[in-house]
């Protein structure tokens, strides 16, 4: 649809005055901004001569945490593999041997856990999905390898990343819960009356004779 001529407002450039037409005020204004930054404060980091300072929430190479007994914390629930948008986690689960003191209290653990660090987009969804805080992203960012296969981290490698980073100061183990189900951790409990009591707005309580609802 063509625009109606009455809807159009024509504007013209404002006229510059003398000082404006010399451009000097604008130049000085710019120089003022530049000068305000000359205060000795540097933002450039001298990487790789100096190590970078990364924010705490930086997401780098993964690790698989260990529980208090040094076993892999992961219970092979595959939540991370389900959540991963890059489809780079493959886990083969197996049954924890019964009556073996090493696996006491565990039903299932990963027989194999492979994470393709090249395919990963470092989104951190796996960490978020994990119900046992078993997988975490560390601050390791300078990750190199000679082959693609080398960059597929297996369980041992991921556990060794844990051993390497757990005391680094920037990668604390986020929780020590290490067990399933956190429902017992609620501190305040909203009250609920017993199921069978009749509350005042129940339809049977409102009826003229209790228990009878008339149309």
């Amino acid at each position, binding site marked *: 649809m063509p625009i109606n001529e009455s809807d159009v407002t024509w504007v013209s450039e404002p006229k510059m005055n003398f000082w404006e037409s010399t451009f000097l005020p604008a130049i000085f204004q710019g120089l003022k901004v530049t000068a305000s930054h000359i205060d000795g404060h540097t933002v450039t980091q001298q990487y790789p001569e100096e190590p970078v300072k990364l924010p705490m929430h930086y997401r780098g190479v993964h690790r698989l945490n260990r529980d208090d007994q040094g076993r892999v914390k992961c219970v092979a*629930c595959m939540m991370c593999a389900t959540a991963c948008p890059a489809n780079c986690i493959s886990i083969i689960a197996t049954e924890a041997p019964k009556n073996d003191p090493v696996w006491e209290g565990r039903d299932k653990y990963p027989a194999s856990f492979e994470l393709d660090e090249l395919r990963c987009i470092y989104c951190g969804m796996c960490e978020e999905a994990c119900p046992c805080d078993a997988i975490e992203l560390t601050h390791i960012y300078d990750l190199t390898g000679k082959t693609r296969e080398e960059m597929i981290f297996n369980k041992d490698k991921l556990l060794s990343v844990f051993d390497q980073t757990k005391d680094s100061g920037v990668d604390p183990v986020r929780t020590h819960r290490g067990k399933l189900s956190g429902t017992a951790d609620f501190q305040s409990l909203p009250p609920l009356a017993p199921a069978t009591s009749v509350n005042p707005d129940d*339809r049977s309580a409102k009826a003229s004779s209790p228990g009878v609802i008339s149309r």
Partner: protein
Amino acid sequence: MPTVYVNNTPVEIGADERLNCIQVAQRAGVEVPHYCYHPALSVVASCRMCLVEVGEKKPDGSIAMQPKLFPGCQTPVKDGTVVVCDSDKVKAAQKATLEYLLLNHPLDCPVCDQAGECGLQDYSYKYGRGYSRLNENKNIKPDKDYIGDQITLFTDRCIICTRCVRFTREVSGTGELQLINRGSHEEIDIFPGEPCNNKLAGNVVDLCPVGALCSKDFLYEQRVWWLKTKNSVCPGCSTGCSITVDQNDDHLYRLKPRTNLLAQGYFMCDEGRFGWKYIHSEKRLTAPQQKQGSQQSAGLWDQVFPTAKSALEQAVKAQPSRFAAIISPWSTVEEAFLLAKTLKDLSPEVTLALGPVRSGEDDVFPKTVTGKPPAQVKFTIRGEKAPNRKGVEQVLQHFQGEVIPFDTIAGQVQQQKFDGLFVLNADPEVAWCPEFVTAAGKLKLLIVEDFLANPLTDAATYVFAGGAWAEKDGTFVNHAGLAQGIARALRGPGEARPDGRILWELAGRSGLFRAATVRQEISKEITAFAPLILGDLGEQGVMLSSANNEPAKEAALAGSAAS
């Protein structure tokens, strides 16, 4: 018509239908959560999940509600019954029941195989509360990893619905499972040394609404939300149990029964449930093969197939009466039809015969203590170990007027009555007799279409690598004449092709093989298959003849009445 009111919606029920509140609510499209109730088992009303408000509409229009909540599974409805499933009272009861059920539940969903298809998860999410108020330690009972060869029990996950106990008592009749101890110490157990190994044992895993009873075969293999499911039919015997095939990445992980009152009811036997392993066997044929000299070698379809096809046409043209085809009772109706039609079009003198049918004694359940047959049969494992003898026979009957059994044709082959033979086999456990294999190996032309290597494929001039039943679309006709559809749930290994496609191409037809289209063609050509005219058989399947319909319907009615 008696009318029942569910949440103010009137629902009409049949004059002599005996329904409970759960069933009538289902008709109204309302879900009444329930655990212990199962349509095939007796009602114990023990889980209390299905509590609803029940009342009666009086002739004067007033409604008298019962003051207390009633278990919907145990409360029959009649004309004028009022069922309220969504009042605050009911919701509070559901919340409280779930809270009780979860008191000692370990909440180990991440390691539980049932997670994703668990009744406790679903109902907690829908009707429960999001947190537990239990501050005490949970009562954790030790797991029992040997309930049976195929069954393991995570004791602490059990909600004591006793479905499994009732199943072994009422359906399998073997009664291995029981509850021991009392109160919150109640556990499912077996008698020492009496494991649950009956032929229907696997069903307790399906019946268990939570992850307490798990199948050792499937344990930790896959998370259930990764499985892709297709409806199919178990080929294990002529009962033709309706099943679902669960697959991921072309690997079959499990079979589960699907409710179909026309076929088997609610369950399936363990032989069928765990018997599919041959699908991933080492012996799978992964490419077509051709014999050059005495050596058989694998080739490409593009090379082997045209040669085999022209060899077949030449053999039939040369002496049609000396060419025969054997069609396995494991083949689908579509495959039998395509092969029979192709050969009979080439020459009506070609002989068609039925492949070997493995048969034996029917096994009926429930088992009785005395060993006598049960008063009411609740499940039959049929002795005839073939899913589609009826269907293939109908096709043979149509094209040839008679059904030649395998023994006859095998004898004729051994008497050198034929020069060429086409064997269409799909039976994984076929046991060809050695004399037949030797005689067939000496023929001028032996084409074998199969999916597992066996002595006959080794002797063949041409081998077509076909598909297992889970890899093809088609129709199976069970012992009662119920035609059910099977669906291609996974792709076969290597170059193996579904048999329907091979035979479609053998027939020289253009386009793609599509089971529904062939089904329609069959229904137009063969009167016995006329009911398949829609092409789509639905979830329940279609009865082939109305004469056959009656007993099946009765069985279905008896089944629902028994529930």
